[in-house]
C-alpha cells in the first residue's frame, strides 16, 4: 500500500473533474438562492418587512438533497411511470409492488390487475365501495396513512416534530394583495400582522419542528391569471412574502346557479346528516347549474355547519373564537397507501392556494431533520369553514408524488415545467361560485376530494 501510495501516478480525468465542478456550482447556486438575500437579517430570520424567512435548515444530508433537482426528478419519475405496461406483465408487476409496499389488493376497485395500464394508474387506484366506512365523529381521517403528529396550535406555530415548528402564516398565507414586483423571490416569508387570531399563532411540524400558518397556507394575492373557462371561481397569483399591498385579483364570469329555497327546505336534516359509506359520495366535480343533487348536497353540508357569513376575514383566514382552540394533525401517506384523499368533515372550501415549492421527501425521517419541510414543499392549502369555525386542509407534495389533484378544481396544475414562480408565492382560486348558498365548495365527511399522483 505504501509503495502504491508513493509510486502510483495521479491521472486527472476530465469527466469527473467536470462533474465535480458542476456539482459545486449547483450547490453554490442553491445555497445562494435559499440562504442569503440579506445577510444582516439572517440572524433574525425575518426580512425587511418583518416577515418570517423560511430557509433550508438541517443536517448535511438535507443540504445534499436540497442540491438535487428534485422537481425534475419527480417529473421524470411520473413520466416513466406513465408508460403503458405489457398486459402480461401487469398482474405480476403490481403484485410485486404490492408485496414490497404493503398494498391490500383485496380492497381495490378492479381485482383484475390488467385493468391498470401503468404503475401511475395503479398508484392512483380507487377502492371498492364500502371499503372505508365513515365514522360519525365530527372529524375523520382524510386519507390512509400514519399519524405523524397532532395537538393544539400554540403561538401560531405548528409543531412538525417535537421541538421543530413552523408558522401558520407560512402554511396558509395571508390575503393581502400585492404586485408581482413586491415578491421576495429569495425567501418564503410571510406577514403575520394582518392576522386577527386571538392569542396563539403557532403550530407544529413533527417532534418539535413547527411552521407558520401563513407559510403553510399562503399570504398575499397578486396578479390576475387568465379567466377561468368554467366560470366557477376567480383566480389570482399571489406572494406570501411581501406585505406591500396593491389590489389586483380578478373575478371571472360566474356560473348561473341559484338553488331554489324550496328544494333546500324539503331536505330532512336526519337524511342530510346520515353518515355515508365510502363510495356513496357524490361526484365532487364542480356542480352544474341548478341540479337537484347539488342543491341537496349544499343543503346537507349547510345543515351540518350552518349557513354563516364566511369566517375568512383575516390574512390567513384565521379568526378564532376565544372559546375555541386551533388544533392540527399531520398524516403521512406511505408509497403503498391508497393515495386519494377525502373530506375529513362537513365543511365548505372557500379558497385554495397553490404554493410553488420544493419536493423533498416527506417521510418521517425527513420530517425529523428538515425544519419547515411542510412549508418548503409544494402544497395546496384549502381554506374554509365548518360548524366550529375555521377549517384548513393542506395536501403536501413529495418527490415521488408531486402532482396534487382536486376533483372540483380542474384548473389546478402542480409540479409543472416551465418558468417557476418564486418560492413562497402562490396562485389562488376562490370557490364562491360553487355554491350560492354556502359561498364555497361544500363537502360531506368522507367525500372524495382528490389525490396524489406519481410525478
Amino acid at each position, binding site marked *: 500500500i505504501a509503495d502504491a501510495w508513493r509510486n502510483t501516478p495521479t491521472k486527472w480525468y476530465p469527466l469527473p473533474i467536470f462533474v465535480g465542478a458542476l456539482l459545486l456550482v449547483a450547490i453554490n447556486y442553491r445555497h445562494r438562492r435559499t440562504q442569503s438575500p440579506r445577510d444582516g437579517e439572517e440572524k433574525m430570520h425575518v426580512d425587511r418587512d418583518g416577515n418570517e424567512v423560511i430557509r433550508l435548515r438541517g443536517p448535511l444530508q438535507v443540504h445534499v438533497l436540497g442540491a438535487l433537482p428534485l422537481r425534475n426528478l419527480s417529473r421524470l419519475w411520473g413520466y416513466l411511470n406513465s408508460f403503458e405496461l405489457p398486459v402480461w406483465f401487469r398482474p405480476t408487476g403490481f403484485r410485486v409492488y404490492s408485496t414490497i409496499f404493503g398494498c391490500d389488493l383485496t380492497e381495490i376497485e378492479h381485482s383484475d390487475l390488467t385493468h391498470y395500464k401503468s404503475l401511475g394508474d395503479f398508484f392512483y387506484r380507487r377502492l371498492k365501495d364500502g371499503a372505508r366506512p365513515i365514522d360519525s365523529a365530527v372529524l375523520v381521517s382524510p386519507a*390512509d396513512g400514519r399519524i405523524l403528529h397532532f395537538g393544539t396550535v400554540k403561538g401560531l406555530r405548528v409543531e412538525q416534530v417535537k421541538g421543530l415548528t413552523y408558522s*401558520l402564516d407560512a402554511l396558509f398565507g395571508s390575503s393581502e394583495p400585492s404586485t408581482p414586483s413586491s415578491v421576495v423571490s429569495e425567501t418564503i416569508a410571510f406577514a403575520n400582522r394582518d392576522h386577527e387570531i386571538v392569542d396563539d399563532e403557532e403550530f407544529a411540524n413533527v417532534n418539535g419542528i413547527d411552521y407558520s400558518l401563513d407559510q403553510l397556507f399562503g399570504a398575499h394575492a397578486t396578479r390576475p391569471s387568465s379567466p377561468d373557462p368554467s366560470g366557477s371561481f376567480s383566480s389570482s397569483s399571489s406572494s406570501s412574502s411581501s406585505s406591500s399591498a396593491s389590489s389586483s385579483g380578478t373575478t371571472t364570469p360566474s356560473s348561473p346557479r341559484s338553488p331554489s329555497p324550496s328544494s333546500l327546505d324539503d331536505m330532512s336534516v336526519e337524511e342530510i346528516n346520515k353518515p355515508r359509506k365510502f363510495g356513496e359520495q357524490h361526484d365532487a366535480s364542480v356542480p352544474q347549474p341548478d341540479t337537484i343533487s347539488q342543491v341537496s348536497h349544499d343543503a346537507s353540508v349547510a345543515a351540518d355547519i350552518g349557513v354563516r357569513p364566511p369566517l375568512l376575514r383575516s390574512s390567513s383566514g384565521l379568526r378564532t373564537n376565544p372559546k375555541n382552540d386551533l388544533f392540527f394533525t399531520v398524516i403521512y*401517506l406511505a408509497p403503498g397507501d391508497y*393515495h386519494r384523499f377525502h373530506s375529513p368533515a362537513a365543511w365548505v372550501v372557500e379558497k385554495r392556494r397553490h404554493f410553488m415549492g420544493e419536493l423533498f421527501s416527506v417521510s418521517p425521517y425527513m420530517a425529523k431533520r428538515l425544519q419547515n419541510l411542510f412549508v418548503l414543499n409544494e402544497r395546496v392549502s384549502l381554506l374554509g369553514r365548518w360548524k366550529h369555525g*375555521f377549517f384548513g386542509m393542506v395536501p403536501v407534495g413529495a418527490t415521488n408524488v408531486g402532482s396534487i389533484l382536486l376533483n372540483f378544481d380542474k384548473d389546478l396544475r402542480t409540479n409543472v415545467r416551465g418558468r417557476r414562480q418564486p418560492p413562497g408565492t402562490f396562485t389562488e382560486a376562490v370557490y364562491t361560485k360553487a355554491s350560492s348558498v354556502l359561498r364555497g365548495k361544500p363537502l360531506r365527511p368522507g367525500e372524495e376530494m382528490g389525490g396524489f399522483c406519481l410525478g
Partner: protein
Amino acid sequence: STIVLVFEAPKNFAFDVQAGQKIKVGQRLGDV
C-alpha cells in the same frame, strides 16, 4: 405525501388517535 389539517374547535375537542398510529379514510380522528 402528507396531509396537514388545521381547524378551530371547542376546547373540549379530543383526538382519538396516537402519534405513529396507522389510520384509514373515514376512521375517527377526534370528536367534541
